[in-house]
């Protein structure tokens, strides 16, 4: 067996998986708090990538270095996406807060289709080349055989982001409020938490993560279009379910497992069936462990 090849695939899988995880976190956090699958989440990711594309296009003309452009583009993308996430919740979900559960779900699908077509009309349906912003840097010889410099940036950024998220949820005031709202929304209100604001904050944080993922993936694949949100959203949703939806470490684990399964399947069997491995894995988990890898079976309080 060729271990070299296996290791290369694993590295690729981790890189891919960590981006899935970043998007999956948005799904799982929103689900944890209001039990809604935010199907428009993938579109927020796509918008993040588009904004970064536009900003990067302008900034490259000014002659800043690639990494500076990437960082600035990412910052603008994050702000835009946060505004989109916030507005999306206000318009598409908040009016339906007390409606039957199916209504916000339909609204989410509607919002997803709307955003995708809106970008397609406002920009273009064609694929656009995303500029190469991360030039190769010389890092230690053994790593460069398995990871490109973009991959390394992705791994660092996702790791730092996830650590920051963990700290935010565990130690800050808003994090505590989010956990309290997730555990008992009525009681959270009764101890004086403005639950509406907590929900807005959750959407904003999720969108920020999605935008970061959008910028990272765009710089890895080198092209974007208005439809990339659909598949990425679906994969990330799969990752969230895989790990146990509503469970934050679960989303990270689910993303990594999904990314590795895809690259292994593509590397050893056929890259044409990449998606089949992803969704096949989902089916398998749902049969064997319906609550997901880290999820707990829901106990309904009466």
């Amino acid at each position, binding site marked *: 067996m060729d271990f070299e090849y296996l290791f290369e695939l694993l590295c690729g899988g981790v890189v891919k998986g960590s981006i899935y995880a970043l998007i999956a976190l948005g799904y799982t956090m929103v689900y944890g708090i209001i039990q809604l699958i935010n199907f428009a989440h993938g579109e927020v990711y796509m918008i993040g990538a588009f904004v970064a594309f536009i900003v990067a296009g302008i900034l490259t003309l000014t002659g800043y270095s690639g990494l500076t452009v990437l960082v600035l583009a990412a910052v603008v993308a994050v702000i835009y996406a946060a505004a989109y996430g916030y507005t999306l919740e206000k318009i598409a979900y908040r009016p339906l807060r007390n409606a039957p559960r199916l209504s916000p779900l339909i609204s989410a699908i509607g919002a997803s289709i709307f955003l995708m077509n809106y970008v397609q009309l406002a920009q273009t349906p064609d694929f656009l080349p995303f500029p190469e912003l991360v030039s190769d840097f010389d890092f230690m010889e053994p790593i460069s055989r398995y990871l490109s410099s973009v991959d390394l940036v992705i791994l660092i950024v996702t790791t730092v982001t996830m650590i920051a998220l963990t700290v935010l949820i565990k130690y*800050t005031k*808003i994090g*505590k409020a989010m956990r*309290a709202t997730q555990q*008992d929304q*009525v009681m959270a209100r*009764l*101890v*004086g*938490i403005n639950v509406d604001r907590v929900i807005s904050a959750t959407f904003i944080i999720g969108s920020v993560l999605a935008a970061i993922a959008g910028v990272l993936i765009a710089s890895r694949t080198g092209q974007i279009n208005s439809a990339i949100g659909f598949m990425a959203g679906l994969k990330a949703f799969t990752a969230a379910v895989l790990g146990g939806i509503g469970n934050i470490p679960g989303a990270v684990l689910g993303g990594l497992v999904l990314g590795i399964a895809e690259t292994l399947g593509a590397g050893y069997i056929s890259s044409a069936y990449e998606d089949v491995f992803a969704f096949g894995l989902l089916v398998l988990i749902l049969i064997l462990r319906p609550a997901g890898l880290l999820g707990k079976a829901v106990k309904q309080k009466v």
Partner: protein
Amino acid sequence: MMAKSNGKKLLEVSGLTMDFGGLRAVDSVGLDIFEGEIVALIGPNGAGKTTFFNCVTGIYEPTAGEVLIHPPGGTSKRINGMKPNSITTLGMARTFQNIRLFPAMTVLENVMIGRHCRTSTTILDAILSSRKAAREEKETIDKSYRLLEKVGLANEADEFSRNLSYGAQRRLEIARAMATDPFLLLLDEPAAGMNPQETHDLDELIVRIRKEDKLAILLIEHDMKLVMSISDRIYVMEYGKEIAQGTPREIKENPRVIEAYLGEEAHA
């Protein structure tokens, strides 16, 4: 009745009515609470006491009636239909009959979350880890520890709240409610399921809270010994209606109340 004549009115409920479809759970109930008072709301099961609490704390919007609060040093407000978090921010806090702690948070965190509405740190302060955020966080932790000491749980601060004993969970609920800096504390059956020793400790705790924190307390309770020993005044409900009010002595001798309770015994 001493408190009634001297103190300032804090809560003023009149004609409170709550319908669930065709069922009238609370029927035109009035209730006043004055500064420094401990008031009990009693009555047979299903009398509408918890529904009354839910209307006053904003969980339900009452069908009819007025709920006015007069915060000490603040302006009076009509609070029917307001959201629970706004009412808590105005200075009313409550506990539940069936314990509703945040089970996956530590004891300390459960109390800290009560400080949420009294601190002004924003998400931006947290991200920039500003000095204000750090100072507020420290104040919150200090205050939360003091409250845990008051209810005797300081040594369990880092336990998950779900791992506490039943009586301890009830005391933690009280600490969490007090963390919101209320001027009026509503306790829904705080002694339910407690053994006599725990009930006795609770009795002391409630009296101590009133004295040290200058809080008024409204409680629903079935333990008559507790009710009679600590209450200044008592309101009695039956089938959604208020059937009596008065001092513990007056209530004990009220024929209508005796009938309601004996009636309940006969059913049981």
